[in-house]
């Protein structure tokens, strides 16, 4: 099987570019801590309201952890609890969320906080809220008739 010299040049370039892309995201994920959300913690979907931390949705200051706040959400067709929170700018926050019924999305528009909420699983993402403004949380996975009405609001304030 014969391959033209130019094709070899092209494939060398192309494959190198792919390797560079993979290295960049790989290093960023596994050494700089930017892994996509994978919490691997399970929960009994029928007992969400009684299970910590979901018994108290909302923003909580925490001590002695790598992050300053925990922001807890419970999703159910077709709303999030809480509906609105204020987060001080610069706070390092662990967002923790789960669903009480079907699969929902949890996307903070304009940020990298974008995770699936699946019954029986806890989804988490830790990040520093370093820009002020209003951030809309939308459900971005179809969950039923009111899917497009399902939202919440985060205000990052001075």
């Amino acid at each position, binding site marked *: 099987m014969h391959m033209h010299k130019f094709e070899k040049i092209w494939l060398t370039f192309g494959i190198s570019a792919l390797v560079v892309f993979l290295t960049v*995201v790989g290093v960023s994920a596994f050494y700089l801590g930017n892994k996509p959300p994978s919490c691997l913690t399970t929960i009994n979907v029928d007992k969400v309201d009684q299970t910590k931390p979901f018994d108290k949705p909302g923003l909580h200051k925490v001590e002695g952890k790598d992050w300053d706040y925990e922001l807890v959400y419970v999703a159910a067709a077709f709303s999030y609890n809480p509906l609105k929170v204020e987060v001080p700018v610069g706070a390092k926050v662990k967002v923790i969320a789960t669903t009480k019924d*079907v699969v929902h999305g949890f996307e903070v528009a304009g940020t990298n906080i974008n995770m699936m909420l699946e019954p029986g699983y806890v989804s988490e993402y830790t990040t520093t809220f370093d820009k002020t403004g209003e951030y809309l949380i939308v459900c971005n996975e179809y969950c039923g008739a009111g899917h497009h*009405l399902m939202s919440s609001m985060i205000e990052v304030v001075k």
Partner: protein
Amino acid sequence: MANSTTAKVKVDPRDAKLSMAHFFVAFSALALGGLMGLLQTLVRSGKWELPWGIDYYQILTVHGVLMGLVLTTFFIMGFQYAAVSRTTGGHSNAARRTGWIGFWIMLVGTLMAATMVLLKEASVLYTFYAPLKAHWIFYLGLTFVIVGSWIDGAAQIMTYAKWRKNNPGQPSPLLSFMAVINTVMWIIATLGVAATVLFQLLPWSLGLVDTVDVLVSRTLFWYFGHPLVYFWLLPAYMCWYAIIPKIIGGKIFSDSLARLSFILFLLFSIPVGFHHQLTEPGIDPAWKFLQVILTFMVIIPSLMTAFSLFATFERYGRSKGATGLFGWFKVLPWGDARFTVPFIGMASFIPAGAGGIINASNQMDQVVHNTIWVTGHFHLTAATSVVLTFFGISYWLVPHLTGRKLTKAMNKLGIIQAWVWFIGMAFMSGAMHFQGLLGGPRRSAFSTYGGSKQAAEWIPYQIAQAVGGTILFIGIILVIIIFINLAFFAPKGEEEFPVAVAENLEEKAPMVFENWKLWLGIAAALILFAYTIPFIDIIQNAPPGSKGFQTWSKW
């Protein structure tokens, strides 16, 4: 010698009938699905509402099922069945009977599922994610579609096997080889979706079991979901590699490299489903990244394809005396719809592929996951590259099968249709990409999200999508007009089924490409490698199962 005889070779009329049966279903799905697409963009513009209690998610289910599952599967099976018939000398009676049985089972399954969607018993979208629980007839219908497609595909495999037996030591005809690769990939891939539908969703919707393991079901679905998109793409590649060169009067750049790229697709399209589950909580990040690496492997055959196509065009152009770096581009037969229509599809694959690499880049998926960017992306891949190529194929295949001719007028209309489609899609898909980067979610009816500022910024893009959708719908009307003309009204005559030959005929394709034990073995090994451990993890660490929900609006 090859040239003078092949020009006249016709698909056996009995095979033609079965292919045409597939195309009637496919183009009906396109017409109806296209109407739904238009309505979706109108609803999302916020300027218009659906009448008579029809709801957005019902028509979105119709659109996704008709376009993503029915149009594609029926067109592909019909096209590949004809391509195998054309290049092997025809199907046997047994293969033909098998094909018809498969076709009818698929059709019955489609009608069962469609009925449940119309009754609002299954507004679960074409991905039917548990624990949304549709009517059991919907799942049974899907089972029929899958099993029917296996039987339908078996007809192609039977004929290929017979050809191999009659021609020992010979590489099989390129188009047949490619068709069989795609069918085999489809069969391996659909095992996953068949498993979740048959063993999880069907018993659960019948009330035989109370709960379903959501993550197992999603994982089985996406084991199928990624090769699904390659199942759509490979028939387009068949046309680009093995048919277009003949249409322009050139040669296949390299038969062996074409086969190699199809083998790579078979191996690497399947063990990559986690790249659709990157933001899910229950899968280990290391295994996600492993499948991201495998996903990047499947980009390589597309890089090869890009080179081969440009090379075919350049070689042809230079043989016509074109000079300079890009002189060859101008001498391509732009007036021939059989070339220009798929060419616009090929060109669209450049942004489509670039977007795909972004989607697959592990944590970068968080920027775009489940935003309308993704919808913009697959309207370039599937709804432009693939379907424009399918349209281009139909413009000679339908008259070939019905014993008619593509007239000058229809040829012209075909080219206009493709440009209309391209312009409409530039608006719709372009606006979807930008809105997605701003965070606009997919699969969502119009919403102001309680007057949010961010959501207000999305609305102009949604209006641009409605403009694009309207132009696209004109494209749908045009292609349906052409299809009906070619199927029933075009003048009788002989339209060629173009099959290209390779530039270098002395270089026989290595027989190792036809060593199915080897390739199926490697494919199985890669699948087991990518899935065994994480899948056992998912089952062992499973939370209590989910009961079913019907959260959509009912009649």
